[in-house]
């Protein structure tokens, strides 16, 4: 099997995640889709590390995980704050910043 298949899988998961971000209205689901995209990118990093024969890709994937953790913490806090004031977790409800 060609290791390229991992990359194809990564691209597919990334695109699926992107569709989810664009189509879902529930902020938490949108967030999950973002996580999916990050994980897809991580898969690509790990695969490239293997293809190139050094561990730098894995290190970057590690950093991605850490940053993703931070992002989740802050993002979910924001969602909770918005939910507290608007009683809704829909990203379409928070649309005051417009023309």
């Amino acid at each position, binding site marked *: 099997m060609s290791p390229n298949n991992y990359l194809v899988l990564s691209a597919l998961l990334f695109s699926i995640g*992107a569709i989810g*971000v*664009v*189509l879902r*209205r529930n902020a938490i689901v949108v967030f999950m889709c973002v996580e999916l995209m990050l994980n897809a990118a991580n898969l690509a990093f790990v695969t490239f590390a293997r293809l190139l024969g050094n561990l730098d890709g894995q290190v970057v994937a590690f950093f991605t995980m850490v940053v993703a953790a931070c992002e989740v913490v802050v993002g979910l806090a924001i969602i909770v704050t918005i939910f507290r004031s608007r009683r809704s977790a829909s*990203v*379409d409800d*928070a*649309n*005051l*910043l*417009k*023309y």
Partner: protein
Amino acid sequence: MEATHALASGTSSLLVWLIALPALGATILLLAGRRSDKWGHLLATALSGASFVVGLVELFQMLGRDGESRGVTQHLFTWINAGSFNVEAGLLLDQLSICFVLLITGVGTLIHIYSIAYMEHDHDRRRFFSYLNLFIAAMLLLVLGDSFLNLYVGWEGVGLASYLLIGFWNQKPAYATAAKKAFVVNRIGDMGLSFAIMIAFTAFGTVSFQGVANHAGPEHKQIMTWMGLALLLAAAGKSAQFPLQSWLGDAMAGPTPVSALIHAATMVTAGVYLITRSNFVFDSAPTAQLMVVIVGVVTLLFGALIGTAKDDIKKALAASTMSQIGYMVLAAGLGPAGYAFAIMHLLTHGFFKASMFLGAGSVMHGMNDEVDMRKFGRLRVAMPITYLTFGLGYLAIIGVPPFSGFFSKDKIIEAAFNAGGPRGWIIGFAALLGAAITAFYMTRVMVMTFFGQKRWADDAHPHESPKLMTAPIIILSIGSIAAGALFAFGSSLQHWLEPVVARGFVEGEPALQPIVVSIMALVAVALGIALAYVKYVRVPVEAVAPTNVSIWTRFARRDLLQDAFNEAVFMRPGQYLTRALTFFDRKVVDGAVNGTGALFGGLSVRVRRVQTGFVRTYALLILVGAALILAAMLAARI
């Protein structure tokens, strides 16, 4: 040519008081307001008189010194000190200035006295006197300034005073318009003066009379020519010379004492003063001198012709003023041979024209402010003093010996003939023609006002004016009798002014003997009187101006179409230009600016719809953008 300008020497701390006293009067009267209504006119008259006394003191001090050191200066303060450019605010009193100082303060004080009675019933008399004082101060600054820039301050000051006084009764729109017209036309002349100052500064780095005089000479002929032409423009504006003459007639809208003081005796002669003071410029620039002569000749005939058709006594006198100043300018244009005569005529004219204007004011005073001479007639019975003084002025202006006008005008005609060559003959005969026309129209004024049948309205009760008015007229009349002989006897004024304007000048062989010129002038005057006699004594004057007159009369009644010309050549095209420019500005410039704004505004209105507020739309756009960038990168790789 070496500097002809008198080296000023010695100082006099009194000089500044000449200007300060009337300036103080104007300030007090304007600031004190209505509180000074009761005594304002007296204060103004007293201060003007005090200024005259200071002038007399200066004169006697000057007489105490010999010819070369008669000029005195007073340094006041450093006005402008910018690098190499230095202007000192200083005063210069020399033989030329003192003539003007005495004329201005003397005649000015008499007219102040006259105005006390004349303006008695005007509730704004105090304001009138403050303006008169302002005028006296400004005019003194004009003649006492020791540089072109100092002169310019006074120049603008008298322009302001003239504007304020012409429009003194500005409740009448026509009068306000007349004031505006005078101001606007004067501005054109003022531009000439500022150009002259700029030329002097650019070329020589100095604007003082002495500094510019030091550069005079053939080596700067071109600069001096330009400067001379600019000064001529200034003089034409202030002295109502062709082609800037149109404002003087309308300036008669002001109270009659103003017409007498500003628009006959003093301010309008400032142009002559300017040319005479700048003699070093004109002596280095023959072309500019020739232009001065041409302007003088044209104006003296122009004014005289207008004078023949005017029925308004003040406008007839104004036309005569224009014409007489034309004589002065003509004389000034003749160079060192004529400066003294220009000043002599200026002084005598100051006397007799002021007295005639005051006489006209007296007539108006007695006739309910009527100015149409066709409504006068036979006033010699009702107003004997006015009649006598006016008559003396009349004899003086037409040049009947031994009255003052004879001496001064005769000298100018003589100098014109002596200009040499065909030019001399042309201007000489033009001056003679002017003398004849002057005699004609002044006789006409005299006859229509004081002789013939009485034509006044039934409700008019002509009476002699109060003593406060007749006294100044009488004093001025004495001046108009005696001044000419006084100045001309032994060429006294000529010698007096020689250190200033004609140093080292030697009179050449005259083209015509003086006696011949005098006889020719008298013949011309006699012809003029005879023609007027035929037209206005033998045929009774009609109370209403006839309308079936020749085209020439109509032409003259309309001031030789000067206003029509100005309107057609300057005003209308100016208006069209302005309209075109505003149209261009509105449609093209504003259109471009507003169009650009509207374009982007409209664009923004549409483009901002992209900002839906839905974060998912933005995410979608990011996704599409990322796809496009990816496509571009791949396309670049292929």
